[in-house]
């Protein structure tokens, strides 16, 4: 199937307009990041504590916030997690935003953040389970494997580990056990179920994850991420300069810088947090963009041999047109893939997929309207040596 006949659109005619648009977006982004909203650093790169919880019965963000307000943690970010195929309002992500009390030195910061997390958990639980705990019951929704195994083993020697595994596998699948009745499908013996009803209770909340990062590690991760990015950009610059010419390498890396900036700009407008998986997303965009750029440069390199004497701008226009079909098909496919992730990927992948959606569109644009013009300008300013390297 043919998408269309090779067109001859004079893309580079609009290079100044495009550059102006790019500059405007980047400027807006830089302003937004530096002067207004700033980038929201997640716990990975900032510091602090992030909790993911599941509730037995649905609640709203407001209700949880009110509970936190009562213990002076009203500034905490409470965010509902959207989970496909399940009732909403049962899973939340909470990040304490209050500065941890740091009377002591830096060393105690982590403990302070941990204490905040404990405080949040206590506030959310409220009086839930206090009476049951006083009677010596165990919360089946938070109990760890070892304790539960021990409890069941003492009552049913020989079948403790097996029964505990059945209960926990249900809890792991559903996030939280809502009713003892729900366990009946797990193949537990009736006497085990009766025993559980007698000796345990179902707390209103379970902790899905708890992450605390101290200032030292936060700074460390930040530094390492920046370092890794700079080195990998340098590596690409050198390789492209060797395989093509220096200006192509410079143009490619310049384009990538811009890709990262624009993506961050859009990202900063949406209030999402920057975490380690997001860095992976940005790197992926960089990967796609460099791929696009090289495919076009490769075609330019080839056309230079076939179209000797023609101005570079025209050669580039022809190359972009020749690659247009491929660009649309490939980017379309990637867009499709990332679209699937965005729709079905769930909470953790969602931010990443969103970033990729922006990046895919942006990457194509930047290849055509940034990497090619940069090469043109470079040659205009510094002149060009005869003959391309191969």
């Amino acid at each position: 199937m043919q998408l269309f006949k090779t067109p001859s659109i004079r893309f580079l005619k609009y290079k100044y307009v495009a550059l102006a648009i790019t500059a405007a977006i980047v400027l807006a982004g830089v302003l937004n990041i530096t002067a207004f909203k700033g980038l929201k650093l997640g716990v990975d790169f900032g510091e602090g504590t992030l909790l993911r919880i599941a509730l037995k019965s649905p609640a709203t963000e407001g209700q949880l916030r009110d509970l936190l307000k009562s213990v002076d943690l009203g500034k905490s970010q409470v965010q509902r997690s959207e989970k496909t195929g399940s009732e909403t309002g049962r899973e939340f992500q909470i990040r304490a935003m209050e500065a941890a009390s740091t009377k002591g030195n830096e060393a105690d910061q982590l403990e302070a953040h941990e204490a905040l997390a404990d405080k949040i958990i206590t506030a959310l639980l409220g009086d839930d389970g206090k009476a049951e705990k006083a009677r010596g019951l165990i919360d089946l929704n938070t109990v760890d494997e070892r304790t539960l195994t021990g409890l069941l083993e003492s009552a049913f020697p020989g079948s403790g580990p097996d029964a505990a595994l059945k209960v926990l596998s249900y809890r792991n699948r559903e996030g939280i056990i809502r009713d003892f009745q729900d366990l009946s499908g797990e193949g537990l013996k009736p006497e085990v179920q009766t025993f559980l009803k007698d000796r345990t209770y179902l707390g209103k909340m379970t902790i899905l994850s708890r992450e605390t990062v101290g200032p030292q590690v936060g700074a460390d991760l930040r530094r390492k991420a920046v370092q890794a990015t700079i080195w990998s950009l340098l590596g690409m610059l050198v390789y492209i300069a060797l395989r093509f010419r220096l200006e192509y390498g410079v143009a490619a890396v310049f384009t990538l810088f811009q890709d990262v900036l624009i993506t961050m700009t859009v990202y900063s407008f949406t209030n999402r947090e920057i975490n380690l998986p997001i860095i992976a997303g940005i790197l992926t965009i960089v990967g796609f963009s460099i791929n696009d750029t090289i495919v076009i440069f490769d075609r330019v390199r080839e056309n230079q041999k076939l179209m000797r004497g023609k101005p570079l701008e025209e050669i580039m226009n022809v190359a972009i047109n020749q690659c247009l079909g491929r660009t649309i098909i490939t980017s379309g496919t990637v867009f499709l893939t990332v679209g699937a992730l965005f729709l079905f990927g769930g909470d953790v992948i969602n931010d990443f997929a969103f970033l990729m959606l922006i990046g895919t569109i942006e990457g194509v644009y930047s290849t055509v309207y940034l990497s090619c013009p940069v090469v043109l300008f470079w040659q205009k300013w510094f002149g060009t040596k005869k003959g391309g390297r191969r």
Partner: protein
Amino acid sequence: MKKNLQWKVVLTVAVIALAIFLAYPFNDAKIRRGLDLKGGIHLTLQVITDDSINIETDQEVTRLEELFKKNSITFSKVTKEGLGRIAVQGALADQESKTRDLFEQYSRDWDYSFTADRANLTLKPLAAQFLRDQSVSQAKETIDNRINGLGVSEPLVQTQGKDKIIVELPGVDDPERVKELIKVTAVLEWKLVKAGPAPDEATLLQATNGQVPDDAEIVKGDPKRGEGGFYLVDKVAVVTGKDLRTIRRTTDEWNNPAVSFTLNADGGARFEQVTGANIGKQIAIILDKKVQSSPVVESRIARAQGGVIQGRFDAQTADDLVVVLKAGALPAGIKYLEERTIGPALGADSVRQGLMAGLVAIVAVMAFMVFFYRLSGFNAVAALLLNVLILFGALAYFKAALTLPGIAGIILSIGMAVDANVLVFERIKEELALGKGVASAISQGFSRAFSAIFDSNLTTIISAIFLFQFGTGPIRGYAVTLTISLVANLFTAVFVSHLLFDLMVKKSAKKLSI
């Protein structure tokens, strides 16, 4: 079959077989999941390496005091001035050469200088660095041993940077216990009790006029063991954890969990002598400066007999005590810098959603390729499937864990694999449009598209290698899957796909379904 195709077919089949062999049966044991997908505990901790310098300085002070006494050098005081800094006070001027000789001979790790009435010693930087490094590697080893005592499958204990240690425990769900287990210094000492337990220090020191005697010190009881109050004990321990020969979980006469031990020859002899001489007195069992219990010595304990540590333990605490005592004491204190506990439920959720999304994505891409490129599209589908297969084989071989960012890496590589196919197919179309025959269009298409595919894949591989080199955990996971699949991509999209065309399309074919 054409001759030159034979070895290509053999190679391709061999690669497929190898990948299946490595990854079969595609379960958890073969394809390891990272903590973010499996659940578990990730801890970053810092070894307080200053501790090792402190210990060395303290020991040097004691050593110098003994040395001077033995060599009858008069001095008034040896004091610790700070980290790795010692001052010897007193009239040393007239004995300088003798002192200098002693320093040269016995304190080689120390720089020294003399002033009118004192000598100053500082620990040499190289020696200090050696001590610090040693304390980190010893701490790592100790933690390793303790973790092994936990019986976790595939734990990871790794040093990072100068003084950090990373601990990853997949599938573990009680962080508090693990943190405690790692953090206890586990210095175990038996010391004779001079007085106590008393509710406060003043009462404790009534007999000694409010003064702590030179050869004694005050320790607190461990409230967790039901031991409140203060004890006055000998400064010098009768035996310590280093004298232990065996250590085992047991139960005491009331059937409570306890820990039994036997001592080595040296420690056993000392224990026998001291217990024999102190019948009726209390002996305190002290763990990390906290009294666990203080039984009364009822008879001389023979050297081979050993004893039992009771402390109102619950079963788990007793178990853990055995683990840490077997693993030995930490050479320096540690503090936590980062703690992440990912519940198995969240991990399972991510896997389910990640798989779902990945599956939808791959099926969508494949459907599109077949729809757009007809029969040739199947070619791309085969290359894509093979790529994923090789990735799993390589992950299993390198024992690399699959993480969420790793899945991002796979998505990028799927995108680039599709792109490689698109580049070739579009090029073949161009060649066909120029009026070339099918066979020559295919071969021209592949050779013309090759440089673009090669350069773009290699550029990304180069960047991935740098990311691996300089990145941290999740970024590394990304770099690993990306590098593997891009290398696989060069093989599948160029070599295998070309081979499939050669096998399927007759040389004389007039039309190509593309």
